[in-house]
């Protein structure tokens, strides 16, 4: 504490590991998953896809955005046994479009097709990154943007 200020202004507490062993009794307000103000995850409460999800990065907004949206929507709403089997054409359109912009969509898209969608492999130029603020190109990191429903909405977008 600094002597020049009132001693109460900046309190300092040093704690050991043991001090913090007991669980906290601080109360936090319960989260409302349907709160419209909150940042939504990939899937909105009504079941639609949140195209503005930071997890998708620039996929839905780039030059191939509409193809991506069509393909992914088709897949999302697909009720076939093999999910998305009727969406082959859409995915092909998307891939063709992406091949026209190799700088934006480097050709690691093969991995994408075998996953649930192409959003799992964002391109190196950073157009599809979870934290698009100043994020590193996570070209092959699976944890960066898997658009599966398991992504919890509250943890989704923090840094941006």
């Amino acid at each position, binding site marked *: 504490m600094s002597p*020049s200020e009132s001693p109460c202004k900046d309190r300092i507490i040093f704690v050991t590991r043991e001090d913090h062993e007991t669980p906290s009794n601080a109360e936090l307000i319960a989260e409302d998953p349907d709160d419209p103000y*909150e940042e939504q995850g990939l899937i909105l409460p009504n079941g639609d896809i949140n195209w503005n999800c930071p997890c998708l990065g620039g996929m839905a907004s*780039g030059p191939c955005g509409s193809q991506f949206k069509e393909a992914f929507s088709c897949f999302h709403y697909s009720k076939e046994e093999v999910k998305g089997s009727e969406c082959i054409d859409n995915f092909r359109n998307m891939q063709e479009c992406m091949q026209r912009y190799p700088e934006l969509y480097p050709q690691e898209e093969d991995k994408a097709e075998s996953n649930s969608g192409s959003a799992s492999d964002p391109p190196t130029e950073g157009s599809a990154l979870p934290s698009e603020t100043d994020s590193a190109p996570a070209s092959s990191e699976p944890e960066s943007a898997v658009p599966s429903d398991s992504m919890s909405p509250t943890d989704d977008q923090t840094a941006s």
Partner: protein
Amino acid sequence: MLKCRTAWKKLAPLARASSTVCRQNVRRTGLTNGRIPALVPAAHMSTGPAGGGGGENRLYFALVGAAFVATGIYAYRTVKGDKQRYQERIDEISSRPSKATESDPEPPAAEAPETAAVEAAEPEAVPEPEPQAAPSAEEPSPSAPDAEAAAPSETTEPPPAEPSAPSEPSPADLTEPPPAPVVESEPPAAAAAAESPAAEPAEPQPEVVAESAVEAVPALPKVPSHTPYLLIGGGTASFAAARSIRARDPNAKVLIVTDEPDLPYMRPPLSKELWFSDDPSVTDTLRFKQWNGKERSIYFQPASFYISPEELDSAENGGVAVLTGKKVVHMDVRGNKVKLDDETEISYDKCLIATGGVPRNLQVIERAGDEVMKRTTLFRKIEDFKALDKVSRNIQSVTIIGGGFLGSELACALGRRSNESDLEVIQMFPEKGNMGKVLPEYLSNWTTAKVKREGVKVIAEALVKSVTCKDDKLEIQLKDGRLVKTDHIVAAVGLEPNVDLAKSAGLEVDSDFGGYRVNAELQARSNIWVAGDAACFYDIRLGRRRVEHHDHAVVSGRLAGENMTGANKPYWHQSMFWSDLGPDVGYEAIGIVDSSLPTVGVFAKATAKDTPKAATEESGTGIRSESETEDTAVSPVASSLPAPVVQQNKDDYGKGVIFYLRDKVVVGIILWNVFNRMPIARKIIKDGEEHADLNEVAKLFNIHED
């Protein structure tokens, strides 16, 4: 001419009044026996001294006379000015037909532009050498004319000009210099043609015209005369908004107008990562390597992501176009349009103002003359980075004035460089320590010690009195008498938000924080939003504020984009910020972090693992802010560098959490060398609860764990 009359009207009563007073006083002085003064005329404005003495009379005469003279001067000036203004207006109007953009009359008369422009359209169809009715042109044309139909009626000024006469010479003008005017008047032609009753010629014409728009001479940059989404400013907030709009409005057409020559880029690396790069060509590539070796460019997207402004109108799936090197100088809110510095007008449906700000300068430097200004850098843009990089290689001593984020980061970056060269790096500021306005004093002192260890000579409590240039060296005289000699100055003393458009647009500017005043939904007026550094917005939780951080620009830009596409969401997701001052000191923060607030800091022992470097290596990501999106840490990667063990003594604040309180509620949190916990911090601020024991709250952060 009318002004003459109004001026005279103003003068007349006063003239009458003063003359009556004169007459009155003459009479009064005659009546010295104190009898009631003569009748005062009804129109009399001023009250004279009743039966006043001579001295008072004279004073009164002088005052009235002065007022009369002043009014006379004012009237004269107004008349003259009006005459001049009128002349300018006439000149402007007469020069307009030669520009060949619009020569059509009043906006309400929408038919007039149509008929006039239809005539313009027909002779145009002729000079078109390739009237290819390409199928691709058919698709954009229905949507393009719709968008552009608004354009002629909106962009026409109401000159008291003849309706159809000027439009006739204009087609003639148009055909003469084929590429430029043809390109420019195509939208009105296309639009008008589409709407004109002459259905048959209308249909092939839009195709022809649209097609030739695409084939227009590439050398001429064409500005679309209308865009559904106009984003003024090409920085982080603007880009985030563009992305948001494109995601939510299918096939949206977004036009970004920026006065910089660069495409949208991120600013933090300019004072951090770019300086640590080993690549000698970094000033050209603007790529940087992160801790984990991954490289990326500071540009959000490469050029292929964007479409060119010429193509914006006809793009089937829309896109984002960036118009560089153009400044918006005037905004007409009623007409939903803006004017650029080259007189071009662009109308919009929705507009975002994301103009950011301009670095402030010290008055003593501004007044010090050109020699000093030449040796001073105001750091903000890519060109400033390039210039400073170049300068720093050729000088012996650089002084950074300012102890906040930018100043400290640049000092550390340059300080690192000084290890390789002979560069002397000095940092001076009025506070007691680095980040003195942000960190509580004990942490500010600690930070200053770290900065010094990066090779920086820190001069605290320094107020600059004057700066002079002597023998090619700058001499900074401080108020306490110290003299600092240096070769170059970097002034990092704050940002002045850019509110140039406030006047013409009639937008409110905040007097406390600066910037455009907007509501919680970032809206300034009906179709105008503001985001980023320039927005003074209402934060539901924390009150009205203006935030100058990168993540805020992203969050607010995204939100503005959402609201521009109909979301109506308030600012709710709290943005964060971070700073790394060398490899040992790193923190992330959220909310209001102002050192004047009472704080409570909870600290633990620091181990070698608790450094920014370790945090990024562990989570396997390049920049720490990205790792915040991961909700679980990835399996730890063994740190390959043997970092020194940090000695724990009483004053060693290795890692911890600092709470900033306002009325017992936590309004700000700093995570000091503790990473990947931002969601918890965000939650605590969002709740806005009063917590009796902050140590209990600190437990939620698990500061002893990695």
